[in-house]
């Protein structure tokens, strides 16, 4: 999360964001509860390194859905990282091998830190520190979480089943709060489509079908994009 100081050093921004990586604990326990092995959970954190997508995949697996639907959900949620790439390509301006490594670190938190800096040097430092600290923390805590489950017994006794929906709500919340009625309409439609189709479709598919709800918000976004383009991307880019 961005510190409240007016001109914080980029490294401090990057490190404070690394604390968010502690939620790898939650991912590890969720993945193990869903039936992933320790190796599978850890490889997923190493390769995916984008929390919402990982939670979407194991969430669908946990609810008995098809792996194809879970993977599609993960990729659809990962698509917003493409947008961060578009935004940060000019700011970071890395080529070759550095670009290939940096691409892996394009997520909500690193984008937020990078966009908060002034100048290329600070932006690069902020991105690098945030990426490194988050990556280490996220993968370490995934491992701890997945191993801890074996000691726990019934994870629901610890309320872990409430963490999944709370986590997605927390990711969604700033946009529900800061954006207009159209965003809340899209969210409501997403809920309705998902719940109405749950009894009819295989698990995992209702989440994908809910993407249709985004169409209800497109027209408004078109108009807004013509005016103050970057404002929307700015709001998306937060820890």
């Amino acid at each position: 999360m961005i510190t409240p100081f007016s001109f914080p050093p980029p490294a401090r921004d990057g490190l404070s964001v690394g604390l968010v990586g502690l939620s790898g604990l939650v991912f590890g326990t969720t993945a193990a509860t869903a039936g992933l092995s320790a190796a599978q959970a850890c490889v997923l954190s190493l390769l995916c390194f984008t929390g919402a997508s990982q939670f979407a995949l194991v969430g669908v697996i946990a609810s008995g859905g098809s792996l194809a639907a879970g993977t599609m959900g993960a990729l659809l949620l990962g698509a917003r990282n493409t947008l961060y790439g578009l935004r940060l390509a000019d700011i970071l301006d890395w080529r070759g091998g550095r670009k290939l490594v940096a691409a892996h670190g394009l997520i909500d938190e690193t984008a937020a830190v990078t966009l908060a800096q002034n100048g290329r040097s600070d932006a690069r430092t902020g991105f690098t520190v945030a990426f490194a600290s988050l990556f280490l923390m996220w993968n370490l805590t995934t491992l701890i979480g997945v191993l801890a489950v074996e000691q726990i017994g019934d994870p629901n006794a610890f309320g872990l089943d409430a963490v999944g929906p709370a986590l997605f709500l927390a990711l969604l919340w700033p946009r529900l709060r800061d954006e207009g009625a159209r965003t809340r309409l899209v969210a409501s439609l997403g809920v309705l489509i998902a719940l109405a189709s749950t009894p009819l479709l295989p698990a995992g598919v209702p989440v994908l079908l809910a993407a249709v709800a985004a169409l209800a918000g497109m027209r408004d976004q078109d108009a807004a994009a013509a005016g103050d383009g970057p404002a929307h991307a700015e709001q998306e880019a937060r820890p």
Partner: protein
Amino acid sequence: MMLWIAVLVAGAGCYGLKLAGLSAPRRLLDHPKVRAFAMTVPIALLSALVAIQAVTEDGVLAFDPARLGGLAAAAVALVFRAPFLVVLVVAAATAAGMRALGVS
């Protein structure tokens, strides 16, 4: 084995999506449809995930008071602008507490 394939496909796909953004022509971002898609689809997906994980189980609607209590507590924490991790802990602690008290 199938689970491994899903893990690897998701991993490769997520990396590919990131790299595509970093490598794509900058003017793509100026396309309103691209922006609208990238901005709006997560809202629909995240809200659907909240609903599915909160009130369904094995493909049917299932209302678990403790889990819903945890989600409600998380919402209250969010209203008070609690940090991300605090929100998750509040949700788990509330659900666990309700179960310990014999709810559900």
